[in-house]
Every structure is written in C-alpha cells, then in structure tokens.
C-alpha cells in the first residue's frame, strides 16, 4: 500500500482517522504494517502490501 493512501482512508467503523505503522516497506509501498484507529482501539493489518479494512467482526 502506498503511504499517501492513508490520507483517503478512514476507520470502517467510526470513520475516524487511521494511523499508519510500517513494519516492512520497499521503495514503492508499505509491505507489512497496520492502520490503527485510536478511537476504536482497533488495528487493521497490512500484509503483502494489501490492507485489510474489514471491520473486526467480519474478519474470518
């Protein structure tokens, strides 16, 4: 996921801001990391450069 995309993403539950944490990145994008909603205290994982923004109750 390209870092600048965080500007257009919101928490799927409360529509609040998300904070990006980077664990692994390459020159183009974040490969592993997470998007964190402080209000909901929920972390949305980024794996293989794809963020999973499904609300927690809908995750497999």
């Amino acid at each position, binding site marked *: *996921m*390209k870092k600048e*995309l965080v*500007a*257009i*993403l*919101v*928490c*799927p539950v409360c*529509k609040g801001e998300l904070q990006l944490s980077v664990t692994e990145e390459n020159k183009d994008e974040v490969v592993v990391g997470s998007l964190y909603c402080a209000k909901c205290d929920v972390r949305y994982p980024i794996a293989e*450069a*794809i*963020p*999973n*923004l*499904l*609300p927690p109750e809908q995750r497999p």
Partner: protein
Amino acid sequence: MTGSMADSNSLFDDVASEYDAWFEGEGKLIFDIEASALRRVLPRLLRPWLEVGVGSGRFAQALGIEIGIDPSTRLLEMARGRGITVFPVRGEESFFDEDTFGTVFLIVTLCFVDSPLRVLKEAHRILKTEGKVVLGLVLRESPWGQFYRAKKEAGHRLYRHATFYRYLEVDKYLKHAGFAVEKIVTTLFQKPGEVTEIETPQECSSPEAGFTVIVASKITGR
C-alpha cells in the same frame, strides 16, 4: 467486475483463473467492444478513479483506473499484478473518506451485489461534489440479459447469484442514491453467439444493446 454477495469470496476465488482467461479467449472481442464504449465516456471524468468490483483488473488496466475493491482475494492478486491498488472488501463497506474520488466505476458489478442501493449510496458518499458514477450494465431487457438469465435459471455457478436489472430499476436506484443520469452509451448489438466484429458505440439508450454505459452525476445537497 465481480460483486459483493455474502459468499462471493469463495465463489469468484474458485473460478478466478477461468474467469480471467475469458478476457483473452472467447470473451476478448466482447471485452474490446465493452471497453470501447467505456472509453467513450472517459474524457473529462475527474480523478482519482475507483472501480468497485475490480475483479482481476482487466477493465481497470484498460481504462486507467488506479484503485479497485473486490471481495475476491485471488482476483485481487491478478489486479495488483496489473498495477491496480487494491483493497479486499465489498462494495457496501465504507473505509474511504468522503469527497475522495472524482469517478466511481461499477462495471458488470451491480448485478452481483447484495444491495445496489447501499453500494450506490456509498459511492455517493465517497465522491467529490462534481463526481460521477459510471455503470457498465447488462440490462435485463436486452438479448444478452435474457441470455445470462437463462444461464442463471439453469444454475450456472456464477450467474445463479446474479440479478439483472431493467433500465428503469437502475434509474430508480440512482435517483434514490442521489444521482442524475447524464449520459448513456450503448454497444454489443450483436447477439450472443454471433459476435464477430468490433462495434462503434452509440450515444443513445436501446433495449437491443447487450452492454449499456450510464454516466450519472452526483446531485448536490444530498
């Protein structure tokens, strides 16, 4: 191109390779005809562009759509390989900020979603004030709509989950979601099993068209 019914993850994941191969095999000419009609409406559409139901990214790649969402992870892997930024999610879900996109595309997607109205309302929310939604549709009243409905009735593994809408139904959903139809382009006048040549898109509605493109603008104050 894939939708967002509850079990669509496994549904499209199971046929992902076969589905994607269609675009280079028996479906290549149909894809070219449909893409040609969509290209007719692209000039002056505001960016960024989002495709809801991006599937394997065939249309997104051909049209220059940057971002796509789809519930099928296997198809999204292919879309990502075609340079599309992808999110594994259904069209009804909402995690984009409001007033984000200039254009939202739904190309042969509305027929597969659980709730067309919810998807269109979400598109309305994330579109900029001057934004537009672009629908690519197989209308129920068309020869191709009847063709796919026959497959649905016969229990086809994909089309049995599809609901093909009449133009008036789509227009009603658009109005309820806060859109006004601005332009219609039609193509694929050749009948199923008889597609042999590329077609020139027509800027008018027609029940004989196998593929209809609707551009609808966001009504302000909604």
